[in-house]
């Protein structure tokens, strides 16, 4: 499962793994076999959920599922059985005989995923499967991906939505400008950056004197005072919250927030860039 910024080369990477485009150098090994682009056995075991919705809108959901299954050499009986199973998994049981042009965006996305599951692939590759859908469908797809992973499927899931990756990924690969720059579990990646933690304290009456007092604490790197809000920067992992509370308790504490580094901070630290949507210049 992975996290990529846009324009990082994720679709190129995926297409290389599947064998849709040749690679300039090096080798790609999938299921212990060399991916030379001609290996049909590798493709037989991959289910590819494309970023764009690639279904035939003028054909019924059932026809779509059956057609894509037939590309993997499944016989008619197995297809008929599998359609019912997959329809249940993607939540389209009652709508299979309708044409996707009458589906919502989320339903089309689910059918798009269903078409890739028909042949029971060993590896499922999902290229931003939640782009442009409503929150309910996104939530459905995320739960469904977690369920698939729990059942033992290997899934490569690309997204530039941090919360999605944090929610579904057991192992994260970060890619930027065509390079894989980091990999690991979420805690491993966060541990790599040793980022600063932030403490935000709102009080009833703020004072410059208390700010100076906070700055004199040995582990505090920086204190900003804006109105009645103190923003305190401390090195990651240093427990100073109790000392901060002690100093500011006389000021009348209103709220205290602490912010741990997250995947976005990891990405920011490693690439120097925000996860962004704009086209690079």
């Amino acid at each position, binding site marked *: 499962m992975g996290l990529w910024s846009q324009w990082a080369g994720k679709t190129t990477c995926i297409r290389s793994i599947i064998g849709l485009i040749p690679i300039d150098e090096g080798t790609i090994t999938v299921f212990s076999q060399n991916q030379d682009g*001609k290996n049909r056995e590798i*493709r037989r075991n991959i289910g590819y959920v494309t970023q764009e919705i690639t279904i035939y809108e003028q054909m019924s959901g059932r026809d779509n599922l059956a057609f894509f299954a037939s590309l993997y050499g499944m016989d008619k009986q197995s297809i008929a059985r599998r359609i019912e199973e997959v329809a249940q998994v993607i939540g389209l049981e009652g709508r299979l005989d309708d044409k996707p042009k009458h589906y919502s965006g989320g339903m089309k996305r689910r059918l798009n995923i269903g078409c890739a599951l028909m042949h029971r692939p060993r590896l499922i590759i999902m290229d931003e499967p939640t782009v442009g859908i409503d929150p309910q469908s996104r939530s459905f797809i995320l739960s469904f991906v977690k369920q698939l992973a729990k059942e033992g499927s290997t899934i490569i899931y690309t997204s530039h939505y941090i919360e999605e990756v944090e929610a579904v990924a057991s192992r994260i690969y970060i890619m930027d400008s065509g390079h894989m720059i980091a990999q690991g579990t979420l805690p491993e990646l966060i541990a790599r950056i040793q980022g600063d933690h932030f403490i935000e304290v709102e009080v009833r009456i703020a004072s410059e004197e208390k700010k100076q007092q906070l700055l004199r604490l040995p582990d505090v790197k920086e204190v900003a005072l804006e109105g009645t809000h103190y923003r305190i920067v401390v090195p990651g992992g240093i427990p100073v919250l109790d000392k901060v509370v002690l100093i500011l308790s006389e000021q009348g504490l209103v709220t205290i927030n602490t912010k741990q580094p997250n995947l976005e901070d990891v990405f920011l630290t490693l690439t120097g860039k925000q996860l962004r949507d704009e086209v690079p210049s």
Partner: protein
Amino acid sequence: MIAFQLKRSSRDLVGQAILILFPLILIFFFDYLYKNINIETGMGMGGQSRITALAIGFALTFQIYGSAISFETLAEDLYSPMHDRIFSSPVDIRKIIVSILLSSTVVSFLQTSILLVFSSIILGASFPSLPLVMLVLLASVVFNQLFGTVLMLLTGGVKTANMVTTIYGSIVPMTVGLYFPLPQTAFFRILRLYGTPMGLANTASLAVMEGQIRLFLICLASLLLLIVLLFFCLRPLVRRISI
């Protein structure tokens, strides 16, 4: 797979209706227009009625436009994001192309057949030696489907293929003398009878209805030869897009 493609090719009901009703209207219109003029078929129609010649001519004309059935269907699979979905499967892409060509041929041939049936029932056209006429029309359908597909694969998209087939479908019927009489010179006679694939199919159809079997065989064989040539052009083009 063919059943799926057949269903897919025949889903555009408006398109199907246009390819059947429009030529019927044109046949009726031109029949009315030429009531007092002898249409130039180049065949010396003998016992055949004008309406029969018009029905064959327009059936052949609209087969050219019908070639879009295959190349537009193919383009949806080859030149859209669907490409990655299909090519990521282990299927041999030739299977997809053949199934689309076959199903489009069936659909286009059905359109032609329905047009002849309607021409016969509504407009009173008669078609002697019908099975052989249908054989010629089938060969013409195959030619047009292959022609459109080769064009599309050569140019890498539907835009040029659509433009070329539209221009081709507008000009070629004129060279057959379908819309107006052509000058009575040797050049125009050869152009009308043998100068284009549509001319060959038109000549073969009218010849077999007139009992001129030799001419029928020559024109049909020429048409089949063109089909074989197109098929050989298709092979490297398919290989080029295959992974």
